[in-house]
């Protein structure tokens, strides 16, 4: 293709491990034209980041090119002498890494680091260009003094400092909260257009890709699966893998969980309503949790009934995980009550830490952890991980019985019981998370707390785990507290939603009601920032509420605006007007 500024030809990369070459990228070709944005999409291990780094002539330690070439701006990157390569890196190609917190040198001031990147644009102008407030002051700060979003903006300023022709963006917004992500993406898009940059965007998030890219190349295990212009790819994906991938992404308008077939056909499974007579399994009233002098959770109340999924939604720092851990007995609340089976003859006090709860109560409230990689002891077989609670809680009386029950539980989470003898490292991420669920089920709980259980998973695996969770709560009448930052996921699985912000509930209600008419500006902001895997998608929430200035207007005796059917919104008002906002 003529006019390409980036051209990767049959690139193959391998790294040495245990004395042999392991291929990570296999004959990948791609072209990027001036001013265009190409997205490299794939799940973990697809080699997308490796390909992106080759544009700067960078390979990880121990890796090498086994075939093909990378040409940027007419220069064969891997044939360049060191001096030329350095010049290329500074002025022709620049990288924005995944985690700006790690990518900025901790011992150098921001301004220095940007200035060092070369170019003639003054640092303050650059910082202004990436929309950072008080740039002169900021330049004198150290990276750790900035928030994640600010750090990423600094990284971007550094990348564009020398006015390069190509920008390589490696998962530039992963790890950022949804609202921050939206801001950073908009900034990148603006800069790209303003400076006429070609961009290579690496992402696993199809929403981001749909929003940003002109063209998409889908990678799987180091090979190109499909390459097409963005709209074509999203509307008419050709490869079954691409189709499955696209279909697996939860959408904000799904009324239930999507079931994805082999060839990528998509069917939304409607939610089963929770029976009205279903008893309340957990009741939290006015719960407050403190970390030292900082208040993480501030007067939160909610009920979860048997068979119901209640989603706690919020950005990082909203207190949602703290609440989950407190319920699991890992933190002691500083105020309020938490009761297990409040209507029952023998209610359990969940305000006590796990160590002081009776065994039967501990058994019945179980936590599933966010990161399946660290929630299983790497030195013990997964069977052992499940057998231990079985024996500990007395749900199995003997060793053989525990082994038998463990195999049963592994089957229950749709895995082969023979995996029991494996170590966690020998399982995939999805399998590990299922084992984590099985371990939680070993205590035969009636309350399951799922703390961001799908965050670390690839999108197709995420869909499977969500479906499993949904099945289990139906089969076992579990009361499920589902913690997530991902609105689309919540939309599919939760019966009711509680939106948290800075430890305070701002809105709660039935999922459909909240999504249909979000009442609080914060909820709307969240929804507006969410990106759908569709290049033509309209913002889920109309209007410019995302930027609306508002302030809290809740009074101790008048906190809520009721919208019926349990949907209520914390009182707020626009910052400039003293008008109390009601229904939208």
């Amino acid at each position, binding site marked *: 293709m003529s006019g390409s500024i980036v051209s990767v030809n049959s690139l193959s990369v391998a790294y040495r491990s245990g004395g042999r070459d392991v291929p990570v990228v296999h004959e990948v070709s791609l072209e990027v034209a001036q001013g265009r944005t190409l997205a490299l999409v794939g799940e973990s291990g697809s080699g997308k980041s490796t390909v992106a780094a080759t544009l700067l002539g960078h390979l990880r330690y121990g890796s090498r090119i086994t075939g093909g070439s990378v040409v940027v701006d007419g220069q064969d990157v891997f044939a360049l002498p060191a001096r030329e390569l350095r010049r290329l890196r500074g*002025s022709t190609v620049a990288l924005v*890494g995944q985690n700006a917190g790690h990518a900025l040198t*901790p011992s150098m001031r921001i301004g220095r680091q940007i200035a060092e*990147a070369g170019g003639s644009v003054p640092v303050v102008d650059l910082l202004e260009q990436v929309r950072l407030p008080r740039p002169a002051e900021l330049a004198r700060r150290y990276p750790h003094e900035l928030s994640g979003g600010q750090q990423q903006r600094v990284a971007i300023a550094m990348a564009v400092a020398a006015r390069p022709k190509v920008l390589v963006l490696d998962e530039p917004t992963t790890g950022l909260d949804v609202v921050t992500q939206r801001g950073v993406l908009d900034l990148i898009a603006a800069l790209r257009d303003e400076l006429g940059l070609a961009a290579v965007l690496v992402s696993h998030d199809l929403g981001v890709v749909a929003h940003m890219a002109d063209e998409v190349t889908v990678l799987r295990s180091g090979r190109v699966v499909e390459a097409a212009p963005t709209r074509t790819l999203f509307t008419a994906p050709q490869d079954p893998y691409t189709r499955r991938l696209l279909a697996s992404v939860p959408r904000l308008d799904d009324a239930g969980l999507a079931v994805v077939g082999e060839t990528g056909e998509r069917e939304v499974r409607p939610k089963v309503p929770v029976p009205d007579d279903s008893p309340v399994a957990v009741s939290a009233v006015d719960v407050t949790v403190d970390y030292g002098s900082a208040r993480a959770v501030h007067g939160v109340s909610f009920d979860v009934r048997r068979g119901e999924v209640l989603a706690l939604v919020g950005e990082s720092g909203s207190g949602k995980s703290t609440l989950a851990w407190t319920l699991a007995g890992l933190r002691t609340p500083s105020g309020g009550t938490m009761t297990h089976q409040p209507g029952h003859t023998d209610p359990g006090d969940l305000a006590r830490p796990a160590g002081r709860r009776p065994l039967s109560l501990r058994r019945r409230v179980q936590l599933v952890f966010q990161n399946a990689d660290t929630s299983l002891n790497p030195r013990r077989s997964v069977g052992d991980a499940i057998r231990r609670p079985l024996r500990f809680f007395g749900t199995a009386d003997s060793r053989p019985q525990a082994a038998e029950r463990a195999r049963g539980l592994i089957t229950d989470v749709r895995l082969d019981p023979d995996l029991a003898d494996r170590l966690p490292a020998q399982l995939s991420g999805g399998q590990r998370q299922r084992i984590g669920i099985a371990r939680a089920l070993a205590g035969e709980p009636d309350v399951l707390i799922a703390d961001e259980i799908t965050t670390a998973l690839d999108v197709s695996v995420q869909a499977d785990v969500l479906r499993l969770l949904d099945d289990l709560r139906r089969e076992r009448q579990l009361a499920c507290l589902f913690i997530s930052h991902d609105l689309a996921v919540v939309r599919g699985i939760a019966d009711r939603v509680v939106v948290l912000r800075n430890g305070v509930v701002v809105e709660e209600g039935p999922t459909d009601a909240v999504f249909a008419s979000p009442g609080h500006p914060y909820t709307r902001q969240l929804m507006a920032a969410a990106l759908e895997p569709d290049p033509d998608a309209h913002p889920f929430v109309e209007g410019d509420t995302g930027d609306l200035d508002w302030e809290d207007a809740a009074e101790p005796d008048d906190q809520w605006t009721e919208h019926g059917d349990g949907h209520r919104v914390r009182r707020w008002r626009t910052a400039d007007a003293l008008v109390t906002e009601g229904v939208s």
Partner: protein
Amino acid sequence: MLSFVARRIAAAFGTLLLSSVLVFLAVQALPGDVATQVLGKDATPDAVAALRTQLGLDQPAWERYFDWVRGALHGDFGTSLVSGKAVGGEVSLYLGNSALIALITVLFAVTGSIVLGIVAGLYRDRWPDHLISTVSLVGMSVPEFVVATVLVLCFSVALPWFPAVVLYGPEASVGQLLPAVWLPALALAIVMAAYIVRMTRTSVIDVMAGEYVTTARLKGLSTWRVVTRHALPSALLPTLHVIALNVAWLAGGVAVVENVFNYPGIGKLMLSSVQNRDLPVIQAIALVSAVVYVCCNLAADLAAMALNPKLRTRGRTR
């Protein structure tokens, strides 16, 4: 930041106080009556009793401890049971001589080994790394007395470039000691450098694999700049504490080398005072070494703060 420094200093004092208690208790546990020890076996019981009173040995232990600490705070560590001189003056005399060796050792060992460690780390798995790593491995595998003995044989007996032993007493002037300082310092430097080289190498490799160094490289910076500006401040952080511990080790660990060279330093005083059961001197040396240890650590912490803005601006204890 100030509160962080204050907290570290307070912690250092706490450690010192605890050390002083430990030292006192340990020394009290030494068997043999001091008075009998001093007067010899021909001493009459009267003389022993008199000396016990004079030394305050008839008082309860805690009272003696407080007396000792009170004295130590005023620089009065009592009198040596052997020489009858003031312990404070004696210890500082020997300590000063050791400090001369330590200074030279630290200058050479630290600068040299950091440079070597960086080179090894940058040329990871290539010949300079293999060479440096092998030599430092041997350096840390050979005990210091072997190094010292070999140095004497080579550079004093075979080639009479340096004196084999120091013939001067603790009062020797720097000028008198200076010719004799090099071999002991070299012996210590070889042993010490091995650890610092390895630590620096590991730490340089770790940091060079870090994301921000990659970022800096991908900014198109020269290797020199990447190493000196981006990698080193962080790479030196873990090395700092190793250096501090090694310097602290010099204060007490030089016994072997000073013995070989008859160098009138704190290590030699330590050996002879233990042999003579000169309790006030042992206590003073232990306390002084503890002070050196604590100061070195404090210095390392403060240096770490200088290198790490995170510590400087936020302030965390560990």
